[in-house]
């Protein structure tokens, strides 16, 4: 079978895989998940998955509806109790020591609202206090400046546009400068300009703070652009795992969207045979 872009990709994959393995070896895991499973009666939502997420990386969790992405993120946050398995976050067992690590984490999803009657400033004040922040006034001013929310601080959150609400949710998610940020489709329902702005801000944040970001998304270009690693989920299982370039090469595809469709439709990965490639060279 002819592999599109195979020679070029194989070389790229080798370089990225080497860089990735060096990174993996040199940094501790921010999240370590072992044989994690979740069943709701006869329905298995997450089926004995295991993975480590390297500190300081941006990892994408990809999969169709019902693949188990949100359940996995919710279990990492401790909002859903697993049926079995272990989760370690920033060195702490999330099932036993959740409250030792929650102040170092945060979460953003357009599907979980913030109190709409409270002003932006009031919401940020409440969440800042819940995270035990000192100098909260200065912190709110800083984050409002960074996210362009200064003129919105005294407006009720419910009166804002979708894009403005997303920025407020992001401000809440970053208020404690988390070491681990969990994002569930952070740019869903945003226009391309705002979505691009949010992505840039998140990448800047990671670069500045060496934070770890785990991102569930359906937006393939977003994942391709932001993530150094992608976990592909289907029917509660991690069916593939690698850098975006790695997966493109493995499936012989030009875009992650095509890879996603291959996985969703149970097409086999057409793994690039590197030895053949090298021989051809």
């Amino acid at each position, binding site marked *: 079978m002819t592999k599109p872009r195979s020679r070029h990709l194989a070389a790229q994959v080798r370089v990225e895989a080497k860089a990735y393995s060096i990174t993996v070896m040199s940094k501790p895991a921010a999240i370590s998940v072992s044989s994690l499973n*979740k069943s709701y009666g006869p329905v298995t939502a997450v089926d004995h998955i295991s993975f480590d997420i390297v500190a300081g990386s941006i990892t994408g969790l990809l999969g169709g509806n019902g693949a188990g992405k949100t359940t996995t993120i919710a279990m990492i946050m401790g909002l859903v*109790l697993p049926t079995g398995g272990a989760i370690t976050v920033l060195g702490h067992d999330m099932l036993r020591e959740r409250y030792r690590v929650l102040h170092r984490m945060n979460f953003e999803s357009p599907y979980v609202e913030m109190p709409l009657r409270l002003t932006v400033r009031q919401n940020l004040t409440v969440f800042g206090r*819940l995270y035990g922040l000192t100098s909260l006034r200065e912190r709110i001013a800083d984050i409002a400046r960074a996210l362009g929310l200064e003129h919105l601080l005294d407006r009720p959150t419910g009166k804002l546009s979708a894009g403005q609400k997303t920025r407020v949710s992001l401000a809440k998610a970053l208020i404690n400068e988390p070491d681990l940020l969990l994002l569930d489709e952070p740019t869903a329902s945003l226009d391309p300009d705002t979505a691009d702005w949010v992505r840039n801000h998140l990448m800047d944040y990671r670069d500045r703070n060496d934070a770890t970001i785990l991102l569930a998304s359906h937006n393939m270009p977003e994942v391709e652009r932001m993530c150094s690693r992608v976990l592909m989920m289907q029917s509660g299982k991690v069916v593939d795992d690698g850098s975006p370039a790695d997966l493109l090469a493995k499936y012989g595809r030009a875009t992650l969207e095509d890879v996603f469709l291959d996985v969703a439709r149970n097409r086999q990965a057409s793994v690039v045979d590197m030895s053949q490639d090298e021989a051809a060279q």
Partner: protein
Amino acid sequence: MSFSDTHPGFSPRRVGAMVLRHWYLLRSSWPRTFELIYWPTVQMLMWGFFQLYLVETSSAFAAAAGVLLGGILLWDVLFRGQLGFSISFLEEMWSRNMGHLMMTPLRPSEFVASLMTMSLIRVMIGFIPVTFLAIVFFGFNVWQLGFALAIFFLNLFLTSWSFGLFVSGLVLRNGLGAENLAWSMMFLLLPLCCVYYPLETLPDWLQMISLALPPTYVFEGMRALLLEQTFRGDLMVWAFALNAVLFAFAFWSFMHFYDASRRAGALLQLGE
């Protein structure tokens, strides 16, 4: 980033943050504040005038003046205490904020403490003006009960928080479909805990149930104080003991429902 409070134990600062959240909400919505005063005032006026009528037509009622109004005011503390707790909880459900909250370091015990504080604040916003209206309209001064009133209050609040905890747990586990229980469950106590009549009025078998409920001792104690000018400490000891058991059971239930909600994956998608 500087944190003042990252220890995993109980944190009054986080309780304060949640109280502040509900205070902001009350401040932002005058109908919410007005509702706290409206019903207690209507109740007190209606039953106050009814008591005036009874006093004028019956010498027996003339001797018991104040018992009906005292019952009304204390029942309102019990009912509004539970409602204040449950509504503060429901506000989080209505705003779909539970996922955010439970992702913060806020512990369930701190959340419960904030709901108890809000229940106290909400009841006082309604109760204090109404007690002064009762003095103006009917010459009934509930504050004259002094120390006894504080003991009555404490017991009634403990019962109302226990019911609020239990109902909130049910809603947490079953979603807003169980919301109506928050409005109606307390009325089960109205006939059983002898708000307007003495315990002996009930049939023997029902008295056994009534005696298992802490508010029964409070209302009996109130009548003893108003009719016989006697503070019944023994009744208050029983009320506290039963409240301790009731509150422990309610907190255990809430934690059980909270864990069940986490097992069912309901915290992120709480709705109907």
